[in-house]
């Protein structure tokens, strides 16, 4: 049993969020997009603790908002069986009359589901806020007979939450933390007598026949008579022999690799602390949870906020591996490309904050026109897939492994190669005093013209991301681009405005040589590579050309000055050259090429208009 769908109403920025969930869910999106609220909403719905939302948690847009008359906070969870994994007899028994059926999706043998609703609102009769958990019927009304969700019901989906702030000191000392719970489960009853004896011995060993201690006891006895406590003795102990306190000091000690020092975990760095908290959490899931829940059918709902916090990239990867192996349904919020690049693209849930309201997007399995039903021929599913197998591979290669930042930006600019990327990224802060990242803009180099994986997932049916393309303007390139855009599901006439072309027949190098003119470029080369560099290059080039001895072989005179510069750039490495040339432009406070300027303006305008 797992949560197949979440609906959140009027909770913080979630006005009406409806999102399907898989076994594993990676919540991505910028700060303030509603990821934490999403996890906390599920936590409120599933944990029968005294903790309830506060007045500030009601969704509000105006200032004069009054939570008492607002629509209630509602969190609706759907638990749906699949064709391969039907509800067990246990579930049927425990949820008698709560189970609903979806006849449409599988008329032969309808799929069962349970909808439970958490509601929080102000109750005028009672004069206070109240919360309630109940089941919904097929018409989404509270069911009639015993509608209320009990502890027994929730034991099927225990929700375990690990928040970002992982303070190891608190974890170690608190009784209610995962460590505290693990500690409590250590059973030493059968050895109690021996333990008592040993403590006795230890206390003696440390404190007996010690002059200071003896004097101290004498002094303290005065206090005893003062307050007239009628007890027989006064003792001083190093170790408490009270049963329940024996494990109070249980701690984790780590030896530093470069020296012999063994320190408690709290004296290690934040990274180690964070990782250790994870392992404690994992141990808790394995050792304690099954005992607490007492339900063999239970699927823990594991909510983890930013597992990457304080942890270096490799450790982030291994923590994610650890999480992947936990059994249960996982909801993980993250900003880490190292987490994102390991997850399945269909597990991404992209949250965005649009004018204060959270929207969610996923990459769909099937095209929108396809109404999913069980029992269709295999070919039907295949032909209606949103992404073809090839596209899935391309996305893995180009997006997931190399450009994960795309998922965290408002807008991305696609360009053909790294030269464009470098120039844009350098000119951005020069022109607008902020990096593209600060604007929420990513510049992505597509390595040739592989736009389709990006455009596909940017489609409004998928993650609905905004994009611009900087492209060459040869007619074939233009034609191909138009074709790609159409193929990825866009109306070309609308979206063609989001393409910025270089002048026809030019690549990026020839364009900027042309823009700045040979004098400036020559100046830069002399500056960067030495006074006579171009002169020497020309001599070498002439020799090369005559060595070829081909028919119709060109001589150096057939090349213009600009073309020779272009060839030089090619030799030196386009990207590196662009990098240094950009620095030169900025140092000398030169103009930015019009087309790039125009593109930057457009992108920023788009960000600002939401």
């Amino acid at each position, binding site marked *: 049993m797992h949560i197949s769908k979440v609906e959140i109403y009027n909770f913080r920025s979630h006005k009406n969020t409806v999102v399907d969930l898989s076994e594993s869910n990676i919540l991505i999106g910028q700060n303030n997009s509603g990821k934490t609220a999403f996890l906390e909403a599920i936590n409120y719905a599933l944990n029968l603790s005294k903790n309830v939302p506060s007045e500030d948690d009601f969704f509000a847009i105006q200032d004069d908002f009054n939570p008492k008359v607002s629509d209630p906070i509602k969190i609706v969870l759907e638990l749906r069986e699949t064709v391969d994994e039907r509800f067990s*007899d*246990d579930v*049927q*028994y*425990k949820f*008698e*009359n709560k*189970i609903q*059926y979806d*006849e449409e999706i599988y008329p032969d*043998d*309808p799929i*069962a589901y349970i909808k439970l609703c958490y509601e929080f609102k102000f109750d005028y*009769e009672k004069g206070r806020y109240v919360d*309630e958990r109940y089941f919904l*019927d*097929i*018409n989404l*009304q509270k*069911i*009639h*007979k*015993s*509608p*209320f969700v009990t502890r027994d019901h929730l034991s099927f989906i225990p929700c375990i939450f690990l928040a970002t702030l992982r303070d190891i000191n608190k974890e170690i000392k608190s009784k209610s933390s995962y460590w505290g719970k693990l500690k409590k489960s250590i059973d030493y009853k059968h050895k109690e007598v021996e333990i008592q004896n040993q403590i006795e011995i230890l206390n003696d060993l440390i404190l007996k026949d010690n002059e200071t201690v003896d004097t101290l006891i004498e002094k303290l006895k005065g206090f005893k008579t003062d307050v007239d406590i009628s007890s027989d003795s006064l003792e001083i102990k190093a170790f408490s022999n009270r049963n329940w306190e024996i494990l109070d000091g249980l701690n984790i000690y780590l030896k530093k690799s470069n020296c012999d020092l063994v320190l408690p975990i709290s004296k290690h760095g934040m990274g180690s602390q964070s990782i250790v908290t994870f392992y404690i959490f994992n141990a808790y899931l394995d050792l304690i949870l099954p005992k607490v829940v007492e339900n063999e059918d239970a699927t823990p709902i594991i909510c983890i906020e930013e597992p990457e916090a304080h942890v270096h990239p490799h450790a982030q990867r291994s923590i994610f591996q650890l999480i992947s192996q936990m059994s249960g349904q996982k909801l993980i919020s993250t900003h880490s490309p190292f987490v994102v690049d390991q997850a399945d693209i269909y597990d991404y849930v992209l949250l965005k904050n649009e004018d204060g309201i959270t929207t969610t997007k996923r990459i769909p399995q099937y095209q929108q026109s396809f109404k999913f039903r069980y029992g269709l021929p295999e070919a039907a599913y295949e032909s209606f897939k949103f992404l073809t197998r090839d596209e899935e591979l391309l996305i893995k290669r180009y997006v997931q492994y190399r450009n994960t930042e795309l998922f965290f930006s408002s807008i991305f600019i696609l360009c053909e190669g790294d030269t464009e990327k470098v120039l844009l990224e350098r000119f951005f802060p020069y022109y607008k005093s902020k990096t593209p990242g600060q604007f929420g803009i990513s510049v992505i180099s597509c390595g040739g013209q592989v736009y389709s994986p990006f455009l596909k997932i940017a489609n409004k049916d998928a993650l609905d991301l905004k994009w611009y393309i900087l492209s060459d303007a040869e007619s074939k390139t233009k034609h191909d681009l138009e074709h790609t855009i159409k193929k990825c599901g866009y109306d070309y006439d609308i979206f063609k405005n989001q393409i910025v072309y270089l002048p026809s027949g030019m690549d990026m190098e020839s364009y900027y040589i042309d823009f700045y003119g040979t004098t400036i470029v020559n100046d830069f080369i002399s500056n960067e590579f030495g006074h006579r560099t171009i002169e020497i290059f020309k001599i070498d080039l002439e020799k090369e050309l005559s060595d070829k001895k081909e028919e119709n072989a060109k001589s150096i005179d057939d090349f213009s000055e600009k073309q020779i510069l272009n060839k030089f750039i090619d030799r030196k490495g386009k990207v590196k050259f662009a990098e240094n040339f950009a620095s030169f432009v900025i140092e000398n406070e030169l103009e930015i090429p019009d087309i790039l300027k125009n593109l930057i303006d457009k992108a920023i305008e788009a960000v600002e208009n939401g």
Partner: protein
Amino acid sequence: MGKILNGLNERQFKATTYDKGNLLVLAGPGAGKTTVLSRRISHILNKSKGEHFKLLALTFTNKAANEMKERIEELVGDEAKRVFVGTYHSFCHDLLRSYGDYIGIPSNFVIYDSTEDYIQLLNGGIRKQLEKELAGDISSAILYNKYKDTMIIEESAPTYYYKIQTLKNKLSFEERAQTHLKMMPDDFKLMYEIYNDELKISSVLDFPDIIFYTNKLLSEKPFILRQVQRIYKYILIDEGQDTNKSQFELITNLCGDNFNNLFIVADEDQLIFEWNNAKFEYLDSLVKKYNSKTIQLYETYRCPSQILNAANNLIKHNKHRIKSKEDLIPTKESTQQSIEMNCFENQDEEAIFVCNKIKDLNHYDETCVISRNRYILEKIQDELGRLSVPFYVPMGQDRYITREMNLIINLMRLIFNEDDKIHLYYICEYLNLDYSYVLNKDDEKTLLQNFIDSYAKLYAEKPIVDVLNKFKSEKNEFYNYYAMLKDILIESDNLDDDLSEDIELFEETYTHYCRDRKNEERDLRDFLNYISFYPRNTTQNKGVTLLTAHASKGLEFGYVFLISMNQGIYPDFRAKKGSRALEEERRNCYVSITRAKEKLYISYTKFKQTKYGLRTHDPSQFVEEMKIISNSNVQNASPS
């Protein structure tokens, strides 16, 4: 474990612990039917402690269900939550409440408490139909042409209503499709339609509908059936002989084809609901379909041997019964003469003798008088009254006797459904308001509001108006408002017996309601339906009980007077020789005589009063069939 199987006789033990498949237990009167059922349920629950399945035990009355539930709780405590014990109707009601939507039954359907309500509903439909007929072409006006008179047609509504109910009980789920109706006369067909339309408009279900739609749900939506079957692994049926067609259909639906844990307790000799379409054949085909083994419980704890012999002798004359059946064996020897047979000149003398005898015996709470028909009991009532002997006649239909309490309940119903014409009608009757005036006031307002406003205008300063206005906005605080209405409508220092009985019944109902429902689950709609399912006439055991033969089923008394045992009365003159009806009469008589724990007095009269003067009157053939005339001394008793 010991407690559960303690004190059972060999056969009871075998039936309780039987685990080799489906079983029919034939339990004679007083053979421990309820004991075996509740022990078996407890035994299974105890054996399967902590497992995740439930048992389903279906009874005919809520009284039987409550009694059984209490016994089970006593035996297995908390495990009792794994059994549903209830009537067919309450089980189906719950299922429809949860899943009725899947076949288009709105989950907020209503069930009326009394037959009167349903008849009123039909009447409303008839009025509408007449209006429609009169507005249109008179020649095709079926109702108008048949009756020409609204009064007459409204008076015949009850007759139609009962016919419709009988038909509904008789028809299976498939048969209720129009084909079966085609053979009926046009006016009936129309009434049937009108009635069902009215039910639909008001989202009301009647009792046959509850089972009918459940059968529909289970047949059309197999996934719902599967869910029920996965939860309920055992099905136990009480009073199996009284199963009618739709109940039979429900059982076979629930069991499917290969069920192995069906347990039926029955006594075909006690089948007395044939008029409600309960037939021996249904029981018989259940037994055959599920290949049930049979265990007969013939050791009878209730009746002394002499009475049992008479019962055995009597019932053998019936052809429609299970062939291999053993005679009932007494566990109680008669210490003295257990049957006294008396013969009187006429019913007046009979009444005088019987009542004096009752007074002499002086065990009023342990005494009952049974007759075939209610009118015969009237003489007894008069005579007992004259002798100041307390007595009690269980009421048939009405749950609440007093005008005041019925008014309160009807007000609650109107509060729940503010446009409920039917209950508004009663309220107007009770309060002497002009119904049509309240009905036709203001379309913008609900009928409830119309009523409150009209009432306020007529009787200024009535606190009831304030209470209703507040009640309207806090419907679920119904118990507080009940208390307020009670304070206004009933003078507490002037309670007669009827009123205190009604109040007691209401408050008892509410206490049970609170026991059965968690705080958050209580609401007005649910409570009103709960009332409808709550047992009627809780037996009071105060004074002599006067019963008709049908009403005596399931009860027992130390002293039983079976009176006017004359041919034509018992058996009824309409039951022809060799007919099924005669067999039903005989079973009825069998039930009547086996109510007695100590002594049975049978009496008949020599003469009867007819329009044409005194005629001789033969004793009932049943008396002869019991074979007691020969060996007991029939006294020509005359009242002293």
